[in-house]
C-alpha cells in the first residue's frame, strides 16, 4: 500500500472556501508560533492567551489595537491599490516617514500662527504630498528606465530614514530638548484629539475609514481602478486597449504613497507630538501593511478588518514581550510566520491537494483537500 500526494489546479473557488482557507492558514500559523514558543520553554497557550488578552481583552488593549490599526488600515489600502497593478511597493515605510517629515515642517513653522482647523488639514495634505513624492520617484524610475520597483522602493526607505535622522540630530533638534534627538513639541493646534484613556486619535481613524471606502470605490467602480486591474492582470492587453501604463502607474503610486504619508501624519500629530527616530515613529507599519493588504485579498474595505487584526497581534506581541521577557523582534517573527502561512493558504486556494492510497497497480481511492 502506497500513499501518493498530488497537486491539481482547482476549477473554481468559492467565498466559503476562501474564508475557510484563510482561517485554516491562520490556525496553522498560530500552531507554528505555538511550536516556536514551546521550544523556548514557554507555555504556548498561556502566551497566545496573553497576546489576545493584551490586545483585545482590556479596554486599554483595545484602544492600543485601534491606535496601531489606524496606520495599518491607511497603508494596507494604499498597498492594495499598488499590488492590484502588480506594482510591488515595499516602500510604504519610507513613504510614511516622508509624510511625517513634511507635516512636521508645517507643524513647526506654521502651526504657531494658525488655528487647528487650518493646520490639521494642511498637515494631512502635506503628509499626503510627502508620501506621494516618495512613491512618485520609484514609479517614474520604473516606467522610464525599467528599474525594478522592489529594489527602488526598498532603497528609498533607507534614504528617508537617514534623512530623518539627520534632521532630528541637526537642524530640527528642539531647543527645549536638552540634546535629545527630538524636534520641539508641536503647538496644540498641530496635535490631534485623543479618545479618553487611550491614544486613539479619532480624526485619523475616521480619515482611515473614509479612505478605505474611497479606495474601494476607486478600485472597483472607477475608470482608473478598471485600468489598474487590467494593467495588473495583463500588461499586453492594457497596451492593446490604449491604457496609459505611464500615467496610471504614476497616479497609483502617488495615491499609494500618499496613503502611507497620511499614516505618518497620524503618528506624529496624533501620538508623539514631535518628530523623532524613524523606528519610534513607525514600528514597521510599512512592512506589516504588506500583510494587511495581502490578508485583505487586496480589498481596501477588508483591510480595515485585517489591519485591526494585525494591530492586535502587534499589541499582544508587545504584551508578551514584556511579561514573558521575549526579545523585541519576536513580534516580527510572528508576523512573518503568519504571512508565510497565508501565502501558503493562497496556494491551496488555487490548487487542490489529492491524497491517494493505492493498493494494486491502478485501483485507488482519492480524497480531496
Amino acid at each position, binding site marked *: 500500500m502506497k500513499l*501518493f500526494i*498530488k*497537486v*491539481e*489546479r482547482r*476549477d*473554481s473557488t468559492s467565498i466559503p472556501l476562501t474564508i475557510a482557507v484563510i482561517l485554516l492558514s491562520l490556525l496553522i500559523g498560530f500552531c507554528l508560533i505555538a511550536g516556536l514558543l514551546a521550544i523556548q520553554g514557554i507555555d504556548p497557550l498561556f502566551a497566545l492567551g496573553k497576546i489576545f488578552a493584551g490586545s483585545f481583552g482590556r479596554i486599554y488593549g483595545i484602544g492600543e489595537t485601534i491606535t496601531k490599526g489606524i496606520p495599518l488600515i491607511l497603508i494596507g489600502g494604499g498597498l492594495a491599490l499598488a499590488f492590484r497593478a502588480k506594482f510591488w511597493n515595499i516602500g510604504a515605510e519610507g513613504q510614511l516617514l516622508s509624510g511625517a517629515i513634511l507635516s512636521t515642517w508645517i507643524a513647526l513653522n506654521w502651526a504657531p500662527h494658525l488655528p487647528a482647523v487650518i493646520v490639521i488639514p494642511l498637515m494631512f495634505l502635506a503628509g499626503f504630498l510627502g508620501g506621494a513624492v516618495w512613491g512618485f520617484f520609484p514609479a517614474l524610475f520604473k516606467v522610464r528606465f525599467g528599474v525594478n520597483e522592489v529594489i527602488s522602493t526598498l532603497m528609498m526607505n533607507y534614504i528617508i530614514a537617514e534623512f530623518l535622522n539627520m534632521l532630528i540630530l541637526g537642524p530640527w533638534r528642539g531647543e527645549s530638548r536638552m540634546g535629545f534627538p527630538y524636534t520641539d513639541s508641536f503647538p496644540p493646534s498641530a496635535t490631534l484629539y485623543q479618545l479618553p484613556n487611550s491614544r486613539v486619535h479619532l480624526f485619523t481613524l475616521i480619515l482611515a475609514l473614509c479612505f478605505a471606502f474611497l479606495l474601494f*470605490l476607486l478600485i472597483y*467602480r*472607477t*475608470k482608473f481602478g*478598471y*485600468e489598474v*486591474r*487590467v494593467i495588473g*492582470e*495583463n500588461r*499586453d*492587453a492594457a*497596451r*492593446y*486597449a*490604449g*491604457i*496609459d501604463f505611464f500615467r496610471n502607474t504614476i497616479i497609483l503610486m502617488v495615491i499609494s504613497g500618499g496613503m502611507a504619508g497620511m499614516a505618518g501624519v497620524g503618528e506624529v500629530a496624533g501620538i508623539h507630538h514631535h518628530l523623532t527616530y524613524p523606528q519610534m515613529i513607525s514600528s514597521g507599519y510599512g512592512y506589516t501593511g504588506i500583510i494587511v493588504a495581502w490578508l485583505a485579498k487586496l480589498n481596501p474595505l477588508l483591510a480595515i478588518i485585517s489591519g485591526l487584526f494585525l494591530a492586535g497581534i502587534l499589541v499582544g506581541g508587545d504584551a508578551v514581550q514584556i511579561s514573558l521577557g521575549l526579545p523585541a523582534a519576536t513580534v516580527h517573527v510572528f508576523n512573518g510566520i503568519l504571512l508565510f502561512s497565508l501565502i501558503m493558504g493562497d496556494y491551496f486556494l488555487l490548487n487542490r491537494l*489529492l491524497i*491517494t492510497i493505492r493498493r494494486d*497497480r*491502478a*485501483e*485507488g481511492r*482519492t480524497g480531496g483537500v
Partner: protein
Amino acid sequence: MKKILSLKMEGITKAFPGVIANRGICLSIHSGEILGLLGENGAGKTTLMNILYGLYRPDEGTILINGEPVVLNSPRDSIRMGIGMVHQHFMLIQNHTVAENITLGYKDAPFFFPLREVEKKLKGFSELYGLEVSARKAVWQLSAGEQQRVEIIKALFRGAHLLILDEPTSVLTPPETADLFEILKRMAKEGHSIIFISHKLEEILTLCNRVVVLRKGEVVGEADTREVDKVALARMMVGRDIVFDLTRKKLTPGDPVLEVDNLTVRGDRGEVAVRELSFSVCRREILGVAGISGNGQRELVEAITGLRPADSGTVRVAGRDVTNSSARLISDYGVSHVPEERIKFGVVPNIMVYENCILKRHHRPPFFRGLFLDYDAVKEHSSRILKSFKVAAPSTSVPVKNLSGGNIQKLILGRELAGEPCLLVAAHPTYGLDVGATEYIRTQLLEHRERGISVLLISEDLEEIFQLSDRIAVMFKGEFMGVIPAGEVNMEDIGLMMAGSKRLEARGK
C-alpha cells in the same frame, strides 16, 4: 514504460459550474492511428483532452490503457503512461532556448551538462521524424510553426506514445501545416497514436483515419474519414447544413477610410518589416491581405492601430493623420482591432466577461459617466454581445479564462464590431472558430461592409480571402506584390505572389 497499444475513455463526464463540458463520452484509439476530434466551439474537446492529460479529474468514467484501468491525477501520471499534449496555447518559456525548454521536465536529463545530452537526442528526433529546430535559439525568436515543433519534441522527449494536439494548425502557415502532417504521419507509422483537434474539415479528412464528433459535450457521431465528406461532417457537427459559399453583394466603394502612404515599420529586432507601403481601403470595401505570416503583417497592423511606431510614412484614418498616435486615440477615431494573439492581447483572462466586453471603450459613455463606471450598462452591453455573437458562457459574471478558445475569439469579434467602427483591422478573425461560427463571422463582416465600414482583413486562409475581399493584396517581405480586384486573379497567381516569385498590377491601372 510499456507502449500504448490501445486507449479507451469510457463514460467520461465533467461538469463545471453552470455547464456540463463532457457528458458520458466514450472514445478509443489504437497504436498507429490518427484520430480526429471535431466539434463546435465549447463542445468540450479541450476539456476531454485535459482529462486525458491529467489536468482535470473526470466526475465520472474510466480510462483504460491496454485494457487496464488507470488513474490519471496529474500530467505527471499521464506522461508516465506515455501521453503527451500540445496545448491550444503554447506553454513555452519565451526567454529560454529550445534546448532549455525541452530539458525542463525531462526527467532522464543528466545532472551535469544536461543540454549536451538533449542536443544529441534532438538530432536523433530530427532525423527520424523530420522535426527540425535549432536547439540554441531562444523561443521568442521562433515562428509559430517552429514553436509547435518544439512542443512536439518536448512531448516525445518525455516518452509520449500517444500525442494530443489541440488545434495545432490554427497558428500555422499552409506550408508549415503540410510539414506538420508529414511529421505526424511518420510518427503514426512508427506506432504512435495521435489525437488531432481541428476546426478545418479538410485537415481532418486528409490527415486522420477516423473522426469523432462532439456536440454540447456528447459524442454525436463517429466515422471513417474515407466514408465521409466535408458537408456530412459539418452537418454532424452543427446539426444543420453549412453554406460554404457566401454571396457577396456588388457594392461601389465610397471614400477612402484608411490611407497608408510610404509606410516603413521596424520589427522587434530592428529589421525593416514593412517597406514603403502605400495603399488605401474605402468605405464598403474589404481589402484582404494574403501572405504567409511573418512577412510584416503583424507590424503593419500594429502600426495602423497605434501599437508600434512607424519609421516613416503616414497613416490616415477618415482623412485624419494618425501616424504614431496613441492606441486610444486611434480607437476613439473608430478603428477596431481583432488582434492576432487573442489570449495575450485581446482579453484579460482573470477578469469577468462583462469587464472584458468594454475593454477599449471603458473610458467613454455610456460605460463611463462622470466619476464612475456604469456597471448596469456594462452588463447589459455584454449580454447583448454574448447573445448576438452566440458566445457560449454560463453568464457574464465568469472570468474569461473559463471560456473555450473559440468563444473567446467570438467575444473579441463581438466587442470590436459592437462599437460601430469605421475601420475594422482583423487579423485572422476566424482562427479557432468552428465552421458554424466561421460562417457567421464572415456573414457579419459582409453585413458590416454593406452598412458602410471598411475592413482590412489579414488572413492566411485563401478561401477566406477570396470569399470576403473586394481587392486582394499579397504581402511578401514587407511589400505588396500587387493589389488586385478579387475577380481578376486566381488562387494560383496568389500562391506565386505569396512565394515572392510574381508581381501583378491591377488591370486598367
